[in-house]
């Protein structure tokens, strides 16, 4: 079965600074990988996804993520954080196949300092 680890429970960055959120996965083959964002009291919104091909994927709101097979990682990055980026971020991994489901990490809470 697949699993996801987000090592950082909480990260604080200053507005305008760069951001990197870590995600490590465990899965026997090439997984489907996702990053979602959740604002307080809201549902999750898809930021970006990786299925195959180019290992650097671009998403919405200026986010990008890089799939590194050798490190089993799919870290999320943003060059300049805005106050509105404060939220909880979830990495998810999906197993291929009809019956495959997504497994979510425990999330990283991002606080943005003015």
């Amino acid at each position, binding site marked *: 079965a697949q699993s996801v680890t987000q090592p950082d429970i909480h990260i604080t960055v200053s507005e305008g600074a760069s951001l990197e959120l870590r995600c490590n996965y465990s899965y026997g083959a090439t997984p489907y990988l996702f990053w979602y964002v959740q604002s307080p009291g*809201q*549902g*999750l919104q*898809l930021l970006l996804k990786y299925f195959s091909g180019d290992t650097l994927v671009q998403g919405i709101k200026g986010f990008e993520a890089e799939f590194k097979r050798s490190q089993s990682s799919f870290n999320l990055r943003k060059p300049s954080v805005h106050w509105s980026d404060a939220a909880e971020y*979830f990495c998810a991994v999906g197993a291929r196949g009809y019956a495959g*489901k997504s497994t*979510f990490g425990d999330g990283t809470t991002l606080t943005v300092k003015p």
Partner: protein
Amino acid sequence: DAMVIQNPRYQVTQFGKPVTLSCSQTLNHNVMYWYQQKSSQAPKLLFHYYDKDFNNEADTPDNFQSRRPNTSFCFLDIRSPGLGDAAMYLCATSPRGGPYEQYFGPGTRLTVT
């Protein structure tokens, strides 16, 4: 805009009193999911429907049931809510079976008194 709608956004029920949460979608997606999310935790999949096919997670308590009368609507029934069932309940859809991207509703916050 096509979307996933959950009603109500906030629900208060009494210990042991049955409650139903509602989800509707205008995306015409085949798959609908129900998740339970407790504070500062990952969403936990309860069950999902692929069209009319119901798929229950092995660790979902019998207290939780679901109905999908048509493509657009899906309901979560909690037969006898306990204090431990207080959580955010998230509905999500996906256009096809498998681990593809999901589209989430805003959630229903359930309080059990």
